[in-house]
């Protein structure tokens, strides 16, 4: 009996945190493996339209993005603007942008590059059509209308 009393008198032992780093490391590795760095800061507001017949873009390294939507800063008005890489761009800048995108990749992969159009759903078709025409002229024919998965 006296033995039990002895035990009760001691403080509860601290939970060992030795395995905590292991758990955290596991999570860390998961995120490290799955992560893709966010390459651009969006300067345009984009709500993607929804569609059901979507294909997933397999190779992220072979996708370049064109963003079209109203600018985030109210000072620039509400007219939709084009964003390439990190800045607003004019229509004429699409051609050099396509070329730069081509030059970054191996020759063999160049025809496989997809230009993904991330366009706000409220945008008028005019600017989209203009962009499409510019892409055609620059011989960037593989395009993707980026959409959310609907329904």
């Amino acid at each position: 009996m006296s033995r039990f009393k002895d035990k009760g008198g001691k403080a509860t032992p601290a939970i060992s945190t030795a395995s905590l780093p292991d758990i955290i490391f596991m999570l860390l590795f998961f995120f490290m493996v799955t992560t893709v760095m966010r390459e651009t800061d969006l300067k345009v507001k984009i709500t993607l339209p929804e569609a059901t017949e979507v294909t997933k873009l397999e190779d992220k390294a072979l996708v370049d993005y064109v963003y079209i939507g109203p600018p985030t800063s109210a000072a620039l008005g509400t007219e939709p603007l084009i964003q390439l890489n990190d800045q607003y761009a004019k229509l004429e800048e699409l051609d050099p942008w396509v070329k730069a995108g081509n030059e970054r990749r191996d020759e063999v992969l160049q025809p496989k590059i997809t230009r993904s159009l991330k366009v706000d759903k409220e945008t008028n078709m005019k600017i989209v059509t203009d962009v499409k025409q510019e892409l055609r002229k620059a011989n960037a024919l593989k395009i993707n209308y980026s959409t959310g998965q609907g329904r």
Partner: protein
Amino acid sequence: MLKRKKIGGVQEINAGSMADIAFLLLIFFLVTTTMDTDSGILRLLPPVVVEDVKMDVNKRDVYEVLINDADMLLVEGNMMDIKELRAGAKEFMTNPSNNIDLPEKRRVTSAECQQKIAEYRSGVASTSDPKLKDDYQKLMEKWEDRLAAVRLLGEYNELPPNAVISLQTGSKTSYDMYVKVQNELEAGIRELRDDLCKEKFGRKFTELDDKTDEDKAIIKAIRLVFPQRISEAEPVDVTKKPS
């Protein structure tokens, strides 16, 4: 120092801060990570035509879809609700009632394929002109593809080569509507492919695995029967079109 080691063994490194370091890294990756892969409707733009080519296209071979500035649909000259577009596209692709306003389907038979292949093969053998040879070769390959399709799917009705769904928009059409229409057209074709595939092989077209040779052949054959021909053609200002 030496003495101490002997008594207590190697002193343990305090691992308490390890968790903090790992947490820091974890939070960094949590913030920068984007899990969602981009998805959307893939399209191939037509290359720019240098010279003005007048294409001789029969009106019945074109399924004309216009979207005006108020996001209303005009299909083949009639107002249409977007809910009916899918069925409309399917009707255009199959023309089940042999309507004279829809494309004329041509029956592809195995005998015809074999005859044409033989014809072009002798053409390749007899001509010495490299350009002509090349043309014959290409035509022969096309017929060989058809023959492969017939073997897999049985005789089928083929769409005319220039049958196309033409999509035109106004300048104020909303992108949302445009994507919806693209989606419906795509869905129409996908449903046709699915139905055909289910009928012949008991599986959906979208469930086929493009990594096995067998399924690859099926995909190729079905694509031949129901080609995805949605034209991203030259923009035409629909608002100025005379009615």
